[in-house]
């Protein structure tokens, strides 16, 4: 495969895949250690109603209103889960199950009842996106990376995803100490005067930012997989948080690259003609990584 083929067709989807994977895996580490791993699951379900409502209000399939709608839906979901948990004295898992299924059902209902047939908005797309379609047709080879004219037509998802990754990484770098302390010993963090409540909420919001930015490009299934699988695999490799995060970044990158390559070329090697869903394959590869870590990881017990 030469540069003139690789750069326009595969480079951008692969980079987006890596950014999505890492941006979700970073906050996923903390969510996993805080026993909130399924928050990622809930957020990615409620992104759909958020986007549908944003579309119905503005009538546009534009990025900004949709991102706002999705982020709003994520916040509504987190607030609703907390409210139901406290008001009804229900265990968090069940409260989560009530909220995200209901909001997802509402999203599907709105989508089916309103006239969205003319625009590119459907449930399947929301679930597994279309990573393969994010091609960079203006590129001719590696030299295009330094060509401002070609760069101007880079798919908009790539800079957006890089931005989300930077936001996530900055948040974790800036709040590293408070996050670490409050994750492992919330009581101690509170006696030190850290405000653990707002910090926990901020972590969820950052996770939502990553999920929402990723959602448009790759669909929600890969988002859930990347929130949980790379951190889970990394957790089985080490007992140190720093090392765990490094492993999770490595696993996320591996899953994105191997998954993308297998989805695009795997079927050809097996004699079929068409490629399969890259998002699905990336999730599958991340599962294989978890299985591997669970079988041989040095800190699996």
């Amino acid at each position: 495969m030469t540069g003139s083929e690789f750069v326009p067709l595969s480079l951008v989807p692969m980079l987006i895949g890596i950014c999505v994977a890492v941006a979700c895996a970073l906050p996923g580490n903390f969510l996993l250690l805080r026993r909130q791993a399924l928050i990622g699951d809930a957020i990615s379900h409620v992104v759909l109603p958020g986007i549908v409502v944003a579309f119905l209000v503005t009538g546009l399939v534009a990025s900004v209103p949709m991102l706002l709608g999705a982020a709003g839906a994520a916040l509504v979901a987190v607030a609703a889960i907390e409210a139901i948990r406290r008001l009804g004295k229900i265990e968090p898992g069940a409260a989560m199950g009530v909220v995200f299924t209901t909001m997802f059902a509402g999203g599907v209902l709105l989508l089916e009842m309103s006239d969205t047939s003319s625009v590119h908005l459907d449930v399947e797309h929301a679930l597994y996106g279309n990573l393969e379609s994010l091609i960079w047709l203006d590129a001719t080879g590696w030299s295009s990376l330094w060509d401002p004219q070609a760069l101007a037509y880079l798919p908009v998802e790539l800079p957006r995803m890089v931005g989300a990754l930077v936001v996530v990484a900055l948040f974790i770098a800036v709040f590293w100490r408070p996050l670490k302390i409050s994750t492992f010993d919330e009581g101690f963090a509170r006696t030190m005067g850290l405000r653990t409540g707002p910090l926990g909420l901020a972590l969820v919001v950052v996770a939502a930012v990553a999920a929402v930015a990723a959602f448009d490009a790759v669909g929600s299934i890969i988002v859930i997989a990347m929130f949980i699988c790379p951190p889970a695999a990394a957790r089985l490799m080490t007992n140190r948080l720093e090392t765990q995060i490094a492993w999770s970044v490595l696993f996320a990158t591996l899953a994105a690259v191997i998954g993308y390559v297998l989805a695009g070329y795997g079927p050809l090697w097996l004699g079929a003609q068409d490629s399969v869903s890259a998002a699905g394959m990336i999730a599958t590869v991340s599962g294989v990584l978890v299985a591997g870590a669970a079988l041989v990881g040095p800190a699996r017990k």
Partner: protein
Amino acid sequence: MIWDALLLGLGYNATLVTLGAGILGIAGGVGGSFLFLRKRALVSDAVSHATLPGVGLAFVLMVAMGGDGRNLIGLLAGGAVSAAIGLLCVNWLSTRTRLAEDAAIGAVLSVFFGFGIVVLTYIQTMSSGRQAGLESFLLGSTAGMLQSDALVLVLAAALTLALVLILRRPLTLVAFDPDFALATGRNVNRIDLAMMGIVLAVTVVGLKIVGLILIVALLIIPPVTARFWTERVDRVLLGAGIVGGLSGYVGAAISAAVPDVPTGPIIVLVSFALFMISLLCAPGRGVVSSVVQHRQYQRRVHLRQGLLALAQGQPIYERLTQRLMERGGLMRGDGVATDKGRAHAAQALLDEARWQVVRSDQAYAAAALRYDGLTEMSSVLTPDQLRDIDARLPAPQGVTP
């Protein structure tokens, strides 16, 4: 139109769907109850997402063997197998590795679902796969449901219900006290697996009607709703069955009567409406009832403190207390106690003095535990004991008006 649908007057197919959804709702509510009581509600999420690759692979297999590929029983059997594998993975990850159950659930659901999507995209490229319609398993589809499909659903739902009724005693025991169950020689793992088997059966049966993403709602929302109304397991089961059945029936009827309304989501929304009603209005655990109880308690505290202040001749500044005292005819607008107020105040002061004696005497330790500043002494001690306490009270003092 809605009434026609609710009374099953919209023709054969709509009737079939409505009844099928109602039965599915009952099975879901009852089957999900123990999952909720065991605090493992979200395991059902992993189970339902894990059906997808099985459904897809079953289709591929059936086509490869020269069949039609759309045989409902075959597809559901495939879904059941992969869901069972997913379930075992969740159990294995959460017991044999350090990962918590929620992480195991998330990992299994995303990976199985992702692999399912891979299989689905592969099927779309098969020559016979373009019309497979397997996407309908994501969100459910009741259009074109056949009588044979409905019969399968009814039989499976009935079997699930029977299984829950047979197993309800061990399931209850494990849900509330797994350690005791283990200590009395029961195989907790096997009972848990039986519970999961029930959940799996409901999930697979529900795939056709509400789809794999929303079937979780039918397993979680009805038990949570029923829990608001009762503290007894058998009534939670009954209530969850009613809520689930009602949601399925009404939801399917609405979807039959109104065009463009998909069945699965509307069933979920109906059950959520029932949940909200219960969250707000249920006696005891509902929000309204909690607020009322809190307000009543607040009033009793204020009234009591007001009476004690009155008895000791201290002025009352607090607004709520003033209002309560005036409304009860205990105090005039200018802060002067009425005769009735003085009588009640003296009573409250006497009660408080008695409590002080009780709390300082070891012999009354059990009674002293019930001291909360509100309880009347006469409702805690017998008249004999009261006489004993009264004999030890300090000499009476005059109350300055």
